[in-house]
C-alpha cells in the first residue's frame, strides 16, 4: 500500500482565549517536546500564551478556550468564526460556560457592589455561556483543564484527515481499565464518575478521591439515579446539588439534575 505523505502545506492554527483561567492553553504548553513535534507540522499563527500574535488572520483550525462572558467576547467570537475553517472549543469554560457560569441566574448589581470596591470596572454580561451558544462549533474537548494527550489526538486526527474520536463514555470505563477499585463502593464516597465524560484517565479515583465532574456530562448520564445513591450515602439535598453545580454547572444535563433535586427537596 502506498499513501502520499502528509500535505506539505502546513495548516494554519490559532489558539484564542476568552473568559478563562488559561489552564487549557497551559495544557498545550505543558506538552513540551510533543508540542515542538506538532509545531513542525502546523503553522502556529496566533497563540498569545506561547508568543505568536495575529488574532485577526484567517486560519484552518482555531482552538477556543474560555466562555463568552463580556460584551467584547460576543463580538470577537463572531469574528473568529468567520475567519476560521474549523473551530474547536476546548475546556469547561468553552464547552459549558465554566466555573464562572455559577453566577448565571444570581448575578445582580447588589452582588457586584458587595464584592468589588470598583463595581464600575466590572463589564461582565449577566451570564457566562459556552461558545456553542453563539457560533457553530465543529468539535468540543471537555475538561478543566483539557488533557494534553487528548488535544494532541484531535490535532493529529485533523492532520490525517479523519474525524477525531469523540469518547462520551463514563469516567468509570477508564477507572476500570486502569484497575482502580471503586471508592463509591469501598468508602461510600460520592463519585461523579458514573455521569462524567471520560478523558482524564480517571485521575481523581487514581488518587483515592472522588471524580468531581470536570469533564462534564457523559452520554446517557443517569443523574437522577446517581443523586438517589448520593442521598442514600448520606449527602443532604444541598450537597447533592453542589455535586452537580461546580465546574460544569451550566451544562444542561447537570443544570437539570440540580434543578430536579431543588424542586424535589422543596416539595
Amino acid at each position, binding site marked *: *500500500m*502506498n*499513501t*502520499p*505523505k*502528509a500535505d506539505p502545506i502546513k495548516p494554519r492554527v490559532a489558539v484564542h482565549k476568552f473568559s478563562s483561567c488559561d489552564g487549557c492553553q497551559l495544557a498545550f504548553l505543558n506538552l513540551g517536546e*510533543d508540542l515542538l*513535534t*506538532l509545531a*513542525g*507540522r502546523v503553522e502556529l499563527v496566533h497563540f498569545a500564551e506561547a508568543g505568536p500574535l495575529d488574532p485577526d488572520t484567517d486560519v484552518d483550525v482555531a482552538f477556543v478556550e474560555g466562555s463568552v462572558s463580556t460584551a467584547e467576547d460576543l463580538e470577537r467570537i463572531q469574528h473568529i468564526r468567520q475567519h476560521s475553517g474549523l473551530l474547536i472549543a476546548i475546556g469547561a469554560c468553552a464547552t459549558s460556560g465554566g466555573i464562572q457560569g455559577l453566577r448565571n441566574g444570581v448575578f445582580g448589581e447588589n452582588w457586584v457592589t458587595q464584592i468589588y470596591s470598583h463595581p464600575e470596572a466590572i463589564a461582565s454580561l449577566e451570564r457566562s455561556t459556552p461558545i456553542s451558544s453563539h457560533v457553530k462549533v465543529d468539535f468540543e474537548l471537555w475538561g478543566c483543564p483539557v488533557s494534553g494527550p487528548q488535544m*494532541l*489526538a484531535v490535532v*493529529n*486526527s485533523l*492532520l*490525517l484527515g479523519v474525524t477525531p*474520536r469523540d*469518547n*462520551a*463514555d*463514563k469516567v*468509570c*470505563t477508564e477507572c*476500570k*481499565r*486502569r*484497575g*482502580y*477499585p*471503586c*471508592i*463509591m*463502593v*469501598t*468508602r*461510600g464516597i460520592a*463519585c461523579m*464518575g*458514573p*455521569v462524567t465524560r471520560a478523558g482524564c484517565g480517571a485521575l481523581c*479515583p487514581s488518587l*483515592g478521591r472522588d471524580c468531581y465532574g470536570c469533564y462534564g456530562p457523559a*452520554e*446517557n448520564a*443517569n443523574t*437522577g*439515579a*446517581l443523586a*438517589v*445513591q448520593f442521598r442514600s450515602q448520606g449527602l443532604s439535598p444541598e450537597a447533592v446539588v453542589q455535586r452537580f453545580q461546580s465546574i460544569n454547572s451550566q451544562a444542561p444535563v447537570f443544570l437539570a439534575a440540580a434543578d430536579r433535586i431543588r424542586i424535589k427537596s422543596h416539595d
Partner: protein
Amino acid sequence: MFSSPEPAGFLPLDQLHALVARLMQLGYQCLGPAVENDAIVMRELDAPDGLPRGLQAEQAPGRYRLTTDPQHRYFAWANGPQAIKPQAFAPQESLWRVERDAAGMLQFEAVVPNAPAQAIIGVRACDLAALALQDAHFLREGRRDPHYAKRREQLFLVAVQCAEPGATCFCASTGDGPTPTAGYDLALAELPDGFVAVSGSAKGAAVLSALNLSAANAQQVDAVRQQGQAAAAAQTRSLPGRTLRDALMSRLEHPRWDEVASRCLACGNCTAVCPTCFCHAEIDGPALDGEASRHERIWDSCFGESHGHLHGFNVRPDIRSRYRQWLTHKLATWHDQFGRSGCVGCGRCIAWCPVGIDLTEEVAALTGSGVSHE
C-alpha cells in the same frame, strides 16, 4: 476432594512461604492479595512470606468494606473487584503497529506482548470457571488470539477453597464453587493448622513434589469437604435455574427492564468486574510525526455508546436496551455461544455496582416464579 486423581498433601501453616519461595525460584512473579483503595486486589509479592493474614471483606449490593478475620486466616476473604481477567485479557494493549518506510510504503508489524510468568495465589473456583469461559472465547479453534494465548500460557494458578463466601456470592447456585474442581495448577484448602494441597497439572505436580509434603490424613480431607459444604450452604443468593435462556428471551418486553433502567447508570462497572465479559474496542494511536501508528485493543462494554453503534445509527441508544443486552447475553444467548450461562456466580457485578443493582434480584423480578428449577 478437589476431584483430583492426585493424593492430597498437607502444607503446614508455617510452610506456606516455602510454596511461594519455590514459585519465585522458578521465575514466577507471584501475585497475592493486597489492599488498594480499601479493596483486596492482586499485586506482586515482594517476599515469600509476604502473604497477608486476616484480610476479610464484607460485601453487599454496591458495598465492599474491609474487615479483619478473627481467626487470622490467609484466605478468609471471598473475592476482590478483579478475578484473573486482567492478567489474561489485558485492559489495554497494542495489537499491531504500522510505520511508513523510506519508500513511503506502509509496513505492518504484529506487537507481541511481553508477558511475564505469573503465579496468582488465591484464585477462586468462580475465577477458574470464568477463565475457562474466557479461554473458550479467546482460544477458540481457528480463532486463537495470540495476545491472550501468550499471557494465558504464562499463568500458574494457585486456587484456594472459599471457606467464607461473600454475601454477594452465589457460585453454589451456578455450580461453579465454592470448592475448586478444575482449571488450577495447585489448589489449597485452608484449615487451622495448614493447607490441604492438590495439583491439577503437571506444572503443579512438579511444584508440589518439590515441597516434599506429607500426605493429608483422612480427617483433614474430610474437614475440607465439610468446609466446602458449609460454604455452599452459607450462600444466600441464587439464580432460579442454570438455563434461563427461554425464560429471559420470552420476556424482552417485560416492564422490569424500564424499571431497572431508571436505576442503572450505564457505567459499565458490572461488565468490567465480570470475569467472563470479553468485549473490547479497537482504536488507533497515530504518532505525532504522522509516520507511525499503533492499533490498540481496550476493554469495552455493552453499557457504552459506541458498543451499539452501527453505520448511521445505534442499536442500543438507551439504558434499557443496554441493561437488557448485558443480562440476556450473560444468562441467555451465552448458552448459544458457549453451551452454558456466562455467569459463574462470583457476585462482583452486585458488589461493585455503584448503585447496588443485584442481578439475582433482577432475574427474580423478570422471571417471577415461572422458571423450572434445573
